[in-house]
């Protein structure tokens, strides 16, 4: 068993690095876009909020796999020729942006309206209010669910295996193709995903506990 594991480990390890790379890209892109989206949702003009709502509803109502395929096959038609990897990352990032946007919106809106009033009353500008009053409080409400969405991104990255990208999932399939022993390989891969995500969810729970005093 151990001998077997040692032989397959290097291949799985390579797949794991691809998984981590894709996840990191998606998380980074969706974080930036999602924060902007969340701010737009909360403070933007009516037309912007409407557009963002449409975007959010469409993205969140689409199965991720359908989105990846659609992006991959529709993009050339729209004039952009892409390799599978960028296409998948774009699809995943667009998907996660909608989720992160919701988290940010929720965090900002849960801050009592009175805070904005108080900040206005002492003469802070919009940018100052955002930086010194809203975002610090929003951050504490944002972090725990966001860390949770990071685990979702890692799980979602497994779908890139279906467009030919050799992540941990596809690496596992390839190893099984050679060794014909599905169970040990899948269990090993599961353990790796579990390790990453479980650590993240433990961290998220610790964050939630630490910032629990913030909740009214």
């Amino acid at each position: 068993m151990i001998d077997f594991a040692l032989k397959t480990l290097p291949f799985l390890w390579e797949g794991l690095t691809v998984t981590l790379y894709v996840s990191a890209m998606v998380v980074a892109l969706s974080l930036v876009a999602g924060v902007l989206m969340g701010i737009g949702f909360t403070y933007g003009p009516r037309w912007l909020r409407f557009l963002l709502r449409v975007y959010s509803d469409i993205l969140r109502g689409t199965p991720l796999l359908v989105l990846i395929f659609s992006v991959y096959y529709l993009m050339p038609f729209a004039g952009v020729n892409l390799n599978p990897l960028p296409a998948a990352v774009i699809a995943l990032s667009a998907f996660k942006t909608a989720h992160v946007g919701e988290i940010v919106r929720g965090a900002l809106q849960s801050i009592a309206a009175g805070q904005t009033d108080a900040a206005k009353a002492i003469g802070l500008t919009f940018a100052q209010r955002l930086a010194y009053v809203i975002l610090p409080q929003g951050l504490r409400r944002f972090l725990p669910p966001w860390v949770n969405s990071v685990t979702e991104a890692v799980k979602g990255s497994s779908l890139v295996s279906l467009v030919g990208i050799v992540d941990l999932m596809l690496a596992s399939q390839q190893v099984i193709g050679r060794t014909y022993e599905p169970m040990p390989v899948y269990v090993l891969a599961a353990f790796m995903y579990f390790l990453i995500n479980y650590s993240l969810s433990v961290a998220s729970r610790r964050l939630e506990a630490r910032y629990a005093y913030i909740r009214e």
Partner: protein
Amino acid sequence: MDYHLNFNFVWKYADKLWWGLALSIELAFISILIGCVIGLALALAHSGGGRVVRSCVTAYVEFVRNVPLLLLIYLIFYGVPSIGGFAYDATESFVATLAVYSGAYLVEVFRAGLDAVPKGVIDASKAIGLTPWQRFVSVRLPIMLRIVLPSLSNVLISLFKDTSLASVIAVPELLYGANWIKTNTFRQVEVWLVVWPMYLVTGYLILVALRQVERRFSLNRQR
């Protein structure tokens, strides 16, 4: 780009899509039913059981929630038969997987739901002399179900979207139909312009229908 949209190829095989959609909806419903049984049983086991039982339930929940659904599908379809010595068809395997998957999320939903039954109402049910079993069946369970209805709706809609993954083990649901059309007609583009909205609209319709059910059973508003 020198490509002309031609949807005829899609319409020709449209029944693959309609039957696929029907199967997707079926799969979601059956899976959540089984998932509810699993989730409720484990939620009760967790609150009533000793340390060993609680750890087992937690281990199950944590494992399923931290591993990609795709991996679970492969594990159950390819992995389990190889050590169990039996085989099952793709649809059975997928339903089992989705049930196990949703069960893990539903354990939390039901636990929170049982906790949310107001303690005063439970006191009242004790005060009129109901036995523990009667209290559970006539008071705690009905109230809990009404409380968790919104969460159940969300899970069902999620499961509907997750049925798209069944295509990887050749279950003939909607996405599999879409891929079939794409491959066999060499039209890479049109089918997505049809199937993507199909998922969106169906998801929306299920949501609307479920909102109606919620309103009927809500504890907060008038019937």
